[in-house]
């Protein structure tokens, strides 16, 4: 017997749940600047989240997918990517989207059933939210193919959940990324649940990162509740991709502290004990402890930032609520670059109907 392949997957983590270092901290994390920014952003993300849920609960917004518990993963992603990189998100990336230029009210538009949420001028070349699971992974490879073909020093970064890793297109994406050595980074937000289906039912392998092995690419696990570990992993993956050293898979371990979406009720299938335990290791508290321990953040700062974010989020909600509804013809006008003749009659009719107040509910 000849050994023709050997490989392993490693897990990285710097802080325990109290924010105490478990190993030597990287240089950049021995000073407050980036990390306090990161912390602020995580708090902001969580404030937006609470607001969105409140809007949904009061009938002012539709179904919403909360980011609760994944703030470190998503904020670090938004902060470490360069502006010229391209984010290809799933539907649970409001924080990175916001950090890259999407407005908070656009997040609300989207979940409020309005395409202007994805129009987001600030999003540049970033992809819109993606609902069909795992499909975005391939767009990331396409973006990376274009980048590589043009010899640019940019990276495509895409995220998905643990459930998404079971879907063939995710695996096809890893495969082509490996075959073509594309400048792409796949982040798996392994929050342990795909709606009601626990991680163990998705896959018999001990890690999801090892899906990278079959594609011949780098894979690693990282504690996704640990912003420092997350930044280290992502920075390395981005640098490698940017330098033409190929793609990476980062399995970021987290926990979905919320229901799957506001349409879900996790108490139907999930033990409260598990949830309680997960709150113990959640990312915001952990980073706050670390900052506290280093004297870089205190109660006063916490208070004032908390007020500030609440105001920001409140303003965004007000803008959202004050917005008009798109006219019905927008349903036609963005379908093609130019409206085909065959659709003219339907468009006219849609306008007439709208003017007559003809709507399904009435």
């Amino acid at each position, binding site marked *: 017997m000849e050994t023709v392949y050997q490989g392993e997957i490693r897990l990285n983590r710097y802080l325990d749940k109290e924010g105490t270092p478990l190993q030597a901290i990287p240089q950049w994390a021995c000073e407050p600047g980036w990390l306090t920014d990161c912390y602020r952003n995580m708090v902001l993300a969580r404030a937006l989240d609470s607001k969105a849920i409140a809007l949904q609960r009061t009938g002012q917004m539709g179904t919403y997918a909360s980011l609760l518990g994944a703030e470190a993963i998503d904020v670090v992603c938004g902060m470490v990517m360069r502006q010229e990189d391209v984010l290809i998100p799933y539907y649970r990336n409001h924080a990175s989207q916001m950090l890259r230029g999407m407005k908070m009210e656009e997040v609300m538009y989207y979940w409020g059933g309005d395409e202007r949420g994805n129009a987001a001028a600030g999003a540049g070349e970033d992809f819109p939210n993606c609902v069909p699971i795992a499909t975005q992974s391939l767009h990331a490879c396409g973006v990376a193919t274009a980048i590589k073909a043009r010899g640019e020093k940019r990276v495509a970064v895409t995220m998905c959940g643990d459930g998404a890793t079971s*879907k*063939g297109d995710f695996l096809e994406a890893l495969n082509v990324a490996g075959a073509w050595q594309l400048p792409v980074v796949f982040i798996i937000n392994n929050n342990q649940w795909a709606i009601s289906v626990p991680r163990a039912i*998705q896959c018999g392998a001990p890690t999801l990162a090892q899906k990278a092995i079959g594609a011949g690419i780098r894979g690693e696990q990282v504690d996704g509740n640990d912003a420092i570990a997350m930044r280290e992993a992502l920075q390395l993956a981005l640098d490698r991709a940017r330098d033409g050293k190929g793609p990476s898979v980062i399995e970021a371990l987290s926990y979905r502290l919320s229901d799957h979406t506001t349409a879900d009720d996790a108490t139907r299938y999930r033990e409260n004990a598990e949830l309680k335990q997960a709150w113990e290791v959640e990312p915001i508290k952990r980073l706050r402890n670390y900052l506290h321990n280093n004297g870089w953040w205190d109660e006063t700062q916490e208070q004032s930032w908390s007020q500030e974010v609440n105001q920001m989020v409140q303003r965004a909600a007000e803008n959202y609520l004050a917005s008009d509804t798109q006219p*019905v013809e927008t*349903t*036609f006008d963005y379908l093609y670059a130019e409206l085909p003749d065959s659709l003219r009659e339907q468009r006219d009719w849609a306008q007439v109907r709208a003017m007559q107040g*003809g709507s*399904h509910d009435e």
Partner: protein
Amino acid sequence: MSDPITMVEAVNLALAHELRSDSNVVVLGEDVGVNGGVFRATAGLREEFGIKRVMDTPLAETMIAGLSIGMASQGMKPVAEMQFMGFIFPALEQIICHAARLRNRTRGRLTCPMVLRAPFGGGIRAPEHHSESTEALLAHIPGLRVVIPSSPARAYGLLLAAIRNPDPVIFLEPKRIYRVAKQPVADNGEALPLDRCFTLREGSDLTLISWGAMVKETLEAAEKLATEDIHCEVIDVATVSPLDKETLLSSVSKTGRCVIVQEAPRHCSVGSEISSLISEQALLDLQAPVGRVSGYDTVMPYYKLENQYLPNVKDIMETVKQTLEFA
């Protein structure tokens, strides 16, 4: 007769009935187990029948369809759920290339007695991809049956028939009316016929043809029109492929006029087929062009505009009147 139940409860009742009476029946899909399905269609089944009969799968629609085909070839009767019809596309290769062909390909040596259930249609303020009606894609595929109930009783009886059918059935559940109207449904194990339309209302002036959730508005329109002394026959197509041509044609040859009501886009749709069928085969009976009320040939808008997209009672009534006024 039992207490009145909703359509989604009727689906659940039929599933439980078949799980109980045929040990080859299994239910599988995403979140169908402990969670009982995102619409609760499989609620309680896991508890009653155990994890070997009610299986949460990994998240992969291609896999769910392909697995079901393999199971069916062994004589099991998988009833697989696609969480929403908007997520059925990864399963199409398996459905089109294999489920629809296994019997024909092997000249009957292997068969594919499976059911693929999917909630479909708009009107519940759901996110993107949760509101489409693409029954035409499936109806175009030879070898499949595409069945769509429009009431709790028909959901129960047709789902029993679908599960017992020896060939693959796509069973599309109009989720907008999952919980809209209750009806007493006896859990008596009596199936309703597939490949048959249901005439829900008799009338002599015009034939209204619909299926799925739009049957609700169609019946409402017929009701209102009746107060204006316009008497519409209302037909629920129920099996959109293969089509019960006879019922459709004989109704139109009686009434001489016809309006088709569907939620789906119009181009190359089930409505196109029915309209062409009637025009081609009952031309001499037709006193007016077939009227069509449908969704637009656009992507289903996000929910703020979905009620603008969905046909409504007024649209139906207007089209009926135009058709009646035709010279």
